[in-house]
């Protein structure tokens, strides 16, 4: 297993009595693209802020590059090596694109002028336009350009595709995959867009109400989560499944449908004992995994 660039264990954080994080865990291995997936208000932004030293946790530990995010000196070092695109994409509104690029480049000795030119072209950013006159999509691309060109080892993106049209989403995702393929870079991005995670992430952490409910390599999740569909000749019995990994059971007419988080075999074995007329195993999409893992509204 590759070393972890981000290592978070048992994070707690409350704002005025409201618990934003209630024991959040997260590991991001070197070279991974990790999607932090959760509903609005699940605690994603709070977790990212703690990693970047913008807020301190009430409990638990957050390490980036092996450095503690809670220590001021270490936190400066973390931020020096990390590119961050906030949800607000706050950029100086009166500067032009060319000015803000030149201004930002001056702070970073490792600034990649080659990439700067490539992304200005690829993202079709007009150099003479003022930031405040850019569309939201263009502002996102500009913020991403500034983060990609600074030679960071870790990129932290808070909802990078939230205001983008589908074509721009594709451009942003493509820039990320190609950057990760050619540079030594690890990416952690928060999102509620399941499709983005499915497309480019190789690791995923699903966060719900301040806790990590599912985490790991995406391929492993896809092979361990499944639905077992059991059909009977008559009315399906009201069976319960107490094998490891068995989740929600739905009973509808002749059909029992059982979710498993831990491969199909234990559920299938128990299903066979019920004398069904057929048993089938269906794969789950990430969307189904997500919906099964997070609590419903209210």
């Amino acid at each position, binding site marked *: 297993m590759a070393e972890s660039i981000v290592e978070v264990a048992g994070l707690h954080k409350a704002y005025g009595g409201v618990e934003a994080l209630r024991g959040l865990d997260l590991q991001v291995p070197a070279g991974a693209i990790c999607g932090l997936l959760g509903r609005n208000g699940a605690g994603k932004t709070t977790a990212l802020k703690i990693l970047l030293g913008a807020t301190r946790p009430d409990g638990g530990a957050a390490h980036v590059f092996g450095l503690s995010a809670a220590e001021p000196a270490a936190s400066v070092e973390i931020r020096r090596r990390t590119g961050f695109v906030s949800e607000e994409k706050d950029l100086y509104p009166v500067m032009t694109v060319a000015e803000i690029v030149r201004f930002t480049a001056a702070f970073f000795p490792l600034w990649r002028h080659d990439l700067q030119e490539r992304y200005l072209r690829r993202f079709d950013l007009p150099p003479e336009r003022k930031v405040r006159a850019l569309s939201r999509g263009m502002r996102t691309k500009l913020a991403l350009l500034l983060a990609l060109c600074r030679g960071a080892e870790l990129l932290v993106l808070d909802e990078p595709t939230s205001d983008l049209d589908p074509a721009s989403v594709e451009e942003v995702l493509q820039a990320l*995959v190609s950057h990760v393929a050619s540079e030594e870079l690890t990416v952690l991005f928060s999102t509620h867009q399941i499709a983005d995670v499915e497309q*480019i992430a190789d690791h995923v952490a699903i966060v719900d109400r301040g806790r990590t409910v599912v985490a790991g390599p995406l391929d492993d999740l896809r092979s361990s989560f499944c639905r077992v569909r059991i059909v009977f000749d008559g009315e399906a019995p009201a069976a319960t499944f107490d094998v490891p990994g068995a989740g929600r059971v739905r009973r509808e007419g002749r059909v029992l449908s059982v979710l498993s988080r831990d491969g199909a075999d234990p559920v299938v074995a128990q299903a066979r004992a019920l004398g069904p007329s057929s048993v089938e*195993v269906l794969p*789950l999409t990430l969307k189904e995994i997500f919906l099964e893992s997070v609590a419903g509204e209210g």
Partner: protein
Amino acid sequence: MLNRPNPSLGVPIYLQLMEQVKHAIETGALRPGDQLPGIRTLAEELVINSNTVAKAYRELQHEGVLELRHGSGAFVARNPRAGRMADALRAAQSLVAGAVERLRERGVTDDEIRRLFEAELARQRRPVVRRG
């Protein structure tokens, strides 16, 4: 040559890529000795994670379908393992043809046949546990 995988299927993207490469070899679109796109090029073209492409290539190498040569990329294997696979597939095809024919005779519809095959495959699917 290779098409965009569908990330929303429950099937891992690297498995979809592996299937595409094998299919291209079966149809002759890719032949022994042919070079595949580099990992980075393919990741960019298909807009998927380069680790996923690398994983598909590694698994195909393990199955003897591809040869990975350091520094120069991935090639369709020259050794006959892929060829033997094509022979095995032709034999398998006649098995499938027979099964489909018999099922139709019993009045099973094509849609039902397709679902039966898929259900059986899903039921017997074993996750790949090797890690690189």
